């Protein structure tokens, strides 16, 4: 247990937000820290204005089809970008009373956009999807800048290196590829093949999240080490690579097989990994882990289970975690007062280092 880090960063719940019968997959803070944006299965981006009191819900942003599967905020402007599972990519003023799209690309991909990333200076966007494509866009107007050679399988994750000249993207088969933005050429690959297995007929796994530390010296890739398909079980895992040498530095196992995927994670400036996992319903937590330690120095409470997204406030003192309502699974007819209910996603705002 890393007591000193725990003392400084122990999270304390501030409030829990949710939208009835709506499941979320993503949470992001605006760059000025004034807004919290969340998105998921209802094809909308939900907004909350943050202040001293309870966050105030603002009008949701509609216009997407299927699920909203990508969401990023411009690092300097009040512009947000969202992508969906039907292939649409759009930009909009995140703080407007009634946001209108600044631009829209109706078919940025053929179907499900799995990930959306923004460059450190906010000038470029990168998208990847089930169509095997990785595409670069001008963030100002949505015009295509570059398309990488198409893969025959899904690309799940993409991230910009902090220096802004390279991207990395990760695919179904656990391959992480570094690409030079200037010419689109592949530079090298990082092996995350442990994130894939073929289970009977099913391809299982994939690189679910990629991120860098602030200085670009460490690359992190996450997913699961699958032990089977169908229900899908596997150890939730983060791989840390030294960016200069390409060598794997650490393999962090963040839970048991029933906790399964590390859906999102980030590398804190203090050198620990903030991650969320989700597996068999009832499992999957928020955790803080110092690489090299045997165990996380913080694991979130049972009340926050099946976690899918985590965002760090620009001030560094707050976290938002998207989890899933309890008792989310069940065969047959789960009725309440004769009505068939869906699940929802508690969004927990937490203060770091609170006494």
């Amino acid at each position, binding site marked *: 247990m890393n007591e000193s880090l725990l003392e400084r960063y122990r999270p304390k719940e501030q409030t829990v937000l949710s939208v009835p019968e709506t499941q979320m997959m993503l949470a992001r803070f605006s760059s000025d820290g004034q807004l919290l944006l969340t998105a998921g299965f209802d094809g909308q981006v939900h907004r909350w204005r943050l202040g001293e009191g309870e966050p105030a819900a603002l009008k949701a942003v509609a216009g997407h*089809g299927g699920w909203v599967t990508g969401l990023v905020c411009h690092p300097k402007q009040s512009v947000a970008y969202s992508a969906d599972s039907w292939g649409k990519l759009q930009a909009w003023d995140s703080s407007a009373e009634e946001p209108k799209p600044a631009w829209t690309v109706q078919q940025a991909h053929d179907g499900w956009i799995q990930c959306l990333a923004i460059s450190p200076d906010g000038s470029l966007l990168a998208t990847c999807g089930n169509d095997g494509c990785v595409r670069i866009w001008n963030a100002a107007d949505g015009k295509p800048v570059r398309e990488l050679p198409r893969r025959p399988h899904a690309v799940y994750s993409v991230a910009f290196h902090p220096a802004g000249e390279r991207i990395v993207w990760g695919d179904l088969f656990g391959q992480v590829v570094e690409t030079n933005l200037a010419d689109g050429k592949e530079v090298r690959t990082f092996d995350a093949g442990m994130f894939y297995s073929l289970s009977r007929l099913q391809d299982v796994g994939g690189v679910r999240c990629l991120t860098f530390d602030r200085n670009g010296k460490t690359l992190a890739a996450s997913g699961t080490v699958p032990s089977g398909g169908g229900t899908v079980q596997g150890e939730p895992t983060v791989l840390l690579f030294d960016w200069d040498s390409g060598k794997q530095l650490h393999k962090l196992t963040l839970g048991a097989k029933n906790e399964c995927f590390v859906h999102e994670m980030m590398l804190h400036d203090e050198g620990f990994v903030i991650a969320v996992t*989700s597996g068999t319903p009832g499992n999957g937590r928020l955790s803080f882990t110092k690489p090299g330690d045997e165990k996380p120095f913080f694991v979130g409470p049972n009340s926050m289970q099946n976690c899918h997204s985590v965002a760090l406030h620009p001030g560094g003192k707050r976290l938002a975690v998207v989890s899933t309502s309890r008792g989310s699974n*069940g065969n047959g007819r789960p009725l309440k007062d004769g009505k068939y209910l869906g*699940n929802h996603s508690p969004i927990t705002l937490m203060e770091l280092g609170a006494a």
Partner: protein
Amino acid sequence: MKSSSLCKPWEHRLSRRQVLGGLAGAAAAGLGLGSLTQPLLAEQLKKQHKQVIFVWLDGGLSQLESWDPKPGTQFGGPFRAIQTSVPGLHISELMPQMAKRMHHLTLVRSLCTKDNSHSAGVARIQRGDPKNRGVTYPYFGSAVAKLLGPGDSGLPPYIWVKPGSGGFVDKDAGFLGAKYGALALGDGKPPENLLRHPELSQRDDEERNELRRMINQRYAARRRPQSNEANSYVYDVASVLMERMDLFDEGQVPDKEWDRYGRTEFGRHMLIGRRFAEAGVTFVKINSYGWDTHGDNFNGHLSLVPKVDQALAAMVDDLIDRGMWDNTLLIMMSEFGRTPRINGHIGRDHWPEAWSVVMGGTGLKQGVVAGQTNKEGTWVEGDEHDIGHVFHTWFRALGIDPHRVEYDNAGQPLPIAHDDCHEIQEVLA
């Protein structure tokens, strides 16, 4: 949730000895007691030589990610729906090949079955859930083997191409007697040790068989005729399989055929299944495991469904091209559907309340959809159809009147499908 595996220890590898031993044992247990109350009708049916190809996805195919998509609704998931070759009919974007062929197929979107567990679901669905009369009913494959007979090929009437190990699965036959069980070809391979051992000369083999025949005669003289019939059948099966080793020779199949079905385990098994159907096997079951996507359902279906789409489309094409469509009933289904509600593992659980089955070929209308679910896909709107209705429909499509034809279980008349159910008339030609 534990997933059910049909690969039980007693199935294990099939050897020639096991085929013979298994069936001979069945003979001693009273093979063939299950007969038909109308033998003349049975003979007429056998002359028509109808066939069935039954594609079984063990677990549950999500109806929302296949035949009954509800895009843009609360439980609709991430995928789009696409237009099919039938005007106004949309299916999931994960099935682009089948979408082009839906004018040949029949879709029932109003299945409402009862069991949401694997332990009950597999047997209940494949036995057609008849009324409980204190007997174990046959699986559909065994029923068809009994009702339609083996045809002229001499091949076993019920072949099951499955992943993993093979074996003779007599439990499928229920009260019909083990002769109507499934000959399971593990990974589509021939039974191990089927062929005469190279060190055994043909002359020695013949002498051995002669000795067997003599012992059989002595055995049969003291037992009921069915027992002797069973033994004869056993050796007929083995000898025909030995003569049809070409069916197992994958080298005879051009590369483009494997490509059309897809270079996957399922694609390969579907093509092997087609070859057995083409050779005259009455009932061919092709099985895929792993359809129990309680977690990561959408990425799972993204991987699974297109592989099935490709192979099923190739099967439709081949049955039509080979002139088999009018005599063959093609079916694809699973144990149940999957919940509209999406759980925290981004999975869907078991949902027998509102799901779909696709079928095509003999006795069915083409390009037809029967039944519907509500806007969110949670319940059936209008008439619900249980598996008993589906069995009635299948039997009728095969030219068997499920209201007249009965099994004769040692003098006990038994209906072939649930007495209280009926055919889904909208889909019958």
